[in-house]
């Protein structure tokens, strides 16, 4: 039987980007990309177990009313599932099985606030970094240059050149609980993506670094590289016409740079998990 890559995108309660994330998964070669409303999971009709690649998409979970993704993280932690292990337990198992998880924007906020990232010392419950209000105190939609750390264990950015992707958030400033945590992230290569200037030199300058993130951090992974979160939206650049200057830059390839992250994920599943 052919190896079937199965991706899942969780929807509901203010998740907004589920359609484009599922589309990106399919374009990247995932055989299936199911958009599953969280109610289906809570009713036990769908189980994470059946998938290889879990996506937490962008949006405003519960309106980000208690701080970005806070209420969403609380739900995933505490909601019970009829006739099956709790969602928190299913996520733990998913990670233990060596599968892939990617959180984009609100999904990144969710992963950080659930403690799934950075997952230091195998602890996926303790929150020790956060994403909070942009220094400018406002939501912004703008495209950013992103420097890829080529030494990072991150599965998703493996062997990728630098990237250009949009950010669309009001709470994207990355803050670690203390200097030691930040240092560990840097040292262990967990900072897979940094906001940068046009020459891809990491930058603390607004608007290159749109939110004032510590260490210009735009995305981090766990030490295994299989869990990854980022504020920029890779699913928003999967085709040439997503690029803000496609009408003037004639040499742009047909595929967008964001698609590369999904291709890495799907290839990893095919080669290492199946």
């Amino acid at each position, binding site marked *: 039987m052919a190896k079937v890559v199965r991706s899942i995108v969780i*929807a*509901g*309660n*203010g998740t*907004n*980007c589920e*359609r*484009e994330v599922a*589309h990106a998964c399919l374009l990247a070669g995932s055989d299936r990309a199911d958009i599953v409303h969280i*109610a289906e999971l809570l*009713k036990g009709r769908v189980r994470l177990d059946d998938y290889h690649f879990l996506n937490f998409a*962008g*949006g*405003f979970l*519960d*309106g*980000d*009313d*208690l*701080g970005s993704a*806070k*209420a969403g*993280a*609380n*739900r995933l*932690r*505490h*909601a*019970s599932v009829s006739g099956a292990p709790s969602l928190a337990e299913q996520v733990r198992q998913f990670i233990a099985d060596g599968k892939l998880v990617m959180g984009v924007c609100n999904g990144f906020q969710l992963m950080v*606030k659930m403690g799934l990232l950075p997952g230091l010392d195998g602890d996926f419950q303790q*929150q020790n*970094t*956060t994403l*909070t*209000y*942009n220094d*400018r*105190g*406002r*939501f*912004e*939609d*703008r*495209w950013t240059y992103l420097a890829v750390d080529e030494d990072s264990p991150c599965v998703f950015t493996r062997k990728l050149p630098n990237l250009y992707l*949009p950010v*669309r958030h009001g709470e994207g400033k990355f*803050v*670690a*609980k203390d200097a030691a945590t930040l240092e560990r992230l840097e040292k262990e290569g967990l900072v897979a993506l940094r906001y940068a200037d046009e020459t891809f030199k990491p930058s603390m300058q607004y608007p290159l670094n749109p939110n*004032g993130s510590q260490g210009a951090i735009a995305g981090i992974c766990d030490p295994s590289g299989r869990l990854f979160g980022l504020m920029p*939206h890779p699913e*928003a650049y*999967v085709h040439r*016409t*997503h690029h*803000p*200057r*496609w*009408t*003037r830059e004639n040499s742009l390839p047909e595929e967008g740079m964001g698609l590369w992250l999904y291709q890495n994920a799907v290839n990893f599943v095919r080669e290492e998990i199946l």
Partner: protein
Amino acid sequence: MANRIIVGLKPGVRDARGERVREELRLHLGIDLPRIRTIDVYTVDADLSDAELEAAAQGPFSDPVIQNFAINNPLACDFDLLIEVGFRPGVTDNVGRTAKEALQYLVGRKFAPGEAVYTSTQYLLNGEINSAMAERIARDFLGNELIQRWTIVSAAEFDRDRGVPTSVARVTSSAEPRVQNIDLQIDDDALMALSRDGMLALNLLEMKAIQAYAADEARIGRRTELGIGAQLTDCELEALAQTWSEHCKHKIFAAKIDYLDAEGNRQTIDSLFKTFIVGATAEIRRRQGENDICLSVFKDNAGVIRFTDDWSLVFKVETHNSPSALDPYGGALTGIVGVNRDPFGTGLGARLIFNTDVFCFASPFHKGDIPQRLLHPRRIFEGVVEGVEHGGNKSGIPTVNGSIVFDERFLGKPLVYCGTAALMPATISGKPGHEKSALVGDRIVMTGGRIGKDGIHGATFSSEELHEGSPATAVQIGDPITQRRMFDFLLIARDRGLYNAITDNGAGGLSSSVGEMAEDTGGFELHLDRAPLKYPGLQPWEILISEAQERMTLAVPPRHLEEFIALAEEMDVEATDLGEFTDSGFYHCLYEGKTVAYLEMEFIHEGVPQMVIPARWQPPSLDEPSIPQPQDLDSTLRHLLGRLNVCSKESVVRRYDHEVQAATVVKPLTGVNNDGPSDGPVIRPLYDSFAGVVTTHGICPRYSDIDTYAMMANAIDEALRNYVAVGGDINHVAGLDNFCWCDPVLSEKTPDGEYKAAQLVRANQALYDYCVAFGVPLISGKDSMKNDYQIGGTKISIPPTVLFSVIGKMQDVRMAVTMDVKRPGDLVYLLGRTSDELGGSEYYAMHKQLGTAVPEVDASTALARYRRLNLAYDEQLVASCHDLSDGGLGVALAESAFAGGFGMRIDLDKVPVEGMMRDDSLLFSESASRLLVTVHPRNRDRFEELFAADVTACIGQVEEQSELIIHGQQGGVIVKSALADLKEAWQATLREL
């Protein structure tokens, strides 16, 4: 008892929100304080153990990395003054709702009825602030007394052990439900007093029609038998007032107008709406025959046109002016989430694909007094922008198009236009997706939010001018998340075929939604006591007409009821069976089994008497000003670029997510630095097709001061030239008209009503003439006719304003063209003739003049040009294209150049002109239907061949150096500006807002 969980930032963590508040306080009120910090307060009014409270504070309510918390103790310290702002009882508290849900997950049980979480924010101010200043900061900046309340505490007064005293914003009411009967057999003065005092907004003619209905002997007999009583009930009178309101019934557009034109010709127009709007569309559809793109026009919540074989396009634009005047944030937020429900509730339901927004404000830099009950335009600006930001972004709908128009008269009433488009399957369960019908026996099901006193009298309130007694309950705060959950649920229900019809609860609440759907069956029976309430104490009439947000009404066949309700419950959405659609012929409401409203359907829907409005057109006597020829056109151009109506709106555009759904192919900002002003967006809503949606708009209220006919013609032309500029197919486009007028009905309050009514007639005549000439059917629209402010001796009427929006198709989004010049060496063409038409122009406005020569639109020439442009795009001949509007050729050249990052050398002598014109007039005239195009030299011959029959000229070339150089008609250089200087002038004005 209630407990307070206080959450603040740890020492050393930057308080970006506090800094933003500090900066805005400086900009808004000119108060510059050294420091402002913020603290969140959750007042938990629920039976929880200490351990549970502690867990809540630690878990969902605080972020352990950056925040700390206290329970029932204060965190505030090191401040000079503390202001805590919370909501008044009954006002939607979204954060409080989310906090309650989070607590329920945490403790694993549901709250008891009446238990809730209320939120407030503490602002810790440092600096010298006296008590008057503190009150001003609270009232004019941090809070809005219509919806919020606050506590001001100085450092000296502050209780360091207990902090700010606990206050719970619970709605308390001991009112028993009671239905009042109202005696209508009273004299005319008393009838009018009843209308006025009860916020019914009905005129004498209408009150007398109701009086006559109530006096009918046979009817009284039947009512007595039924036990409802001879006199009408408050429910019935309120239902009639809402249904018959200007807002719902569009009585002015339906009126008989006695029109006298300037030549003394008298004409009776029986309904502007039927004559000019429906009339135009019918004529166009007839002419288009097989190529008719319309699927559903005027009859549903939004218009529907064809898109692809499998999908149809839905579009609606609404205004939310009056609420936005009182509470800009809540008004605009409610406006956007409100208009979302229109396309969603069209046909059997549609998925939302983008929002548009257009605002009309007074200058945010307004100096001088603000009349009573009005807010400073800067506050309106900030609040409205933030409301639309939250409404659009949180709902996951990209805001792709908009503009902001400035005129001092919008001080009296800001205009807030919000539009939403949607994609609908062409067929659903084998039937056309745009059709629906409730069936006899279907259950009336309400889903989404609950009913509260919020939004009571919204429809009647917006049918009047803003006056002293305008009710605060008309102000609401939208809740995008409750709505998003409901939409997620309903799309599944739609695809499972669980309902027969759907509509939204907007103006008039259940009374309107159920009343309208029941026209399909000819009656209904609605049990008001079954409706879920936010809090107890609502009277039956309040339940009936409350405009509480985020609700849809559906007709669910009894066999699907159980599945429908179960699905809702599973998805955390409330759905309640409220009654049944019948064929009784009666609008029938009950409360606890007792009939409280029993009106003939025909009377409530058709009984409103037609108004008769006099209109007399007399062109205003105006002169062409003589403006001295400027010595320095560089500085004139920079000035013009920096004017509010021209300058960059980037600071606003970036606050809107314009890319969510990954479909925005041409974005609102474009060019080499992603900051040039796009003429319009192109959307690719289907991932498996390159078919595109283009939407643009035109709006030119300044021309109304000369002639509303020209205003309307130019708005239509502006929308269409923007539309073709990005690549929209001129043969596949539909229009929406949104009229915002000042009261045009002659009365004591409006002595110039005849003129304003004539302005309305002329705008409608142009609407008909130009839509028919361009072949653009109207598919939906709205009017808001009472945009006046009248308190004491002050009256402010807005300039008559029509937003003309278009939506249409392009075959392949990869053919789209943006406005930025692309490369040195490209040739610059101007399409269309320039005439001495500066009347109402931005250039004249800069000199505080109006003038009289308003641009005329020649539709047949324009249409031929737009068709040719479509062909040029098909052949990929065009590198860039930008429409000429405010500021004319000069502004368009500058924008195209700095957006593209290349200079241009232009020769004005080459510009085709009508007669003789000065250089400044030529540069800044706003003659219609003109486009600035750049073309690669290799395409020159083919391009010129294509446009040979049109008025077209090559007027210059794109150049490597970053300068705009313009040679005057005499040959000398009249403009030589660095692009950086032009761009800076264009960007500086609103950069900090």
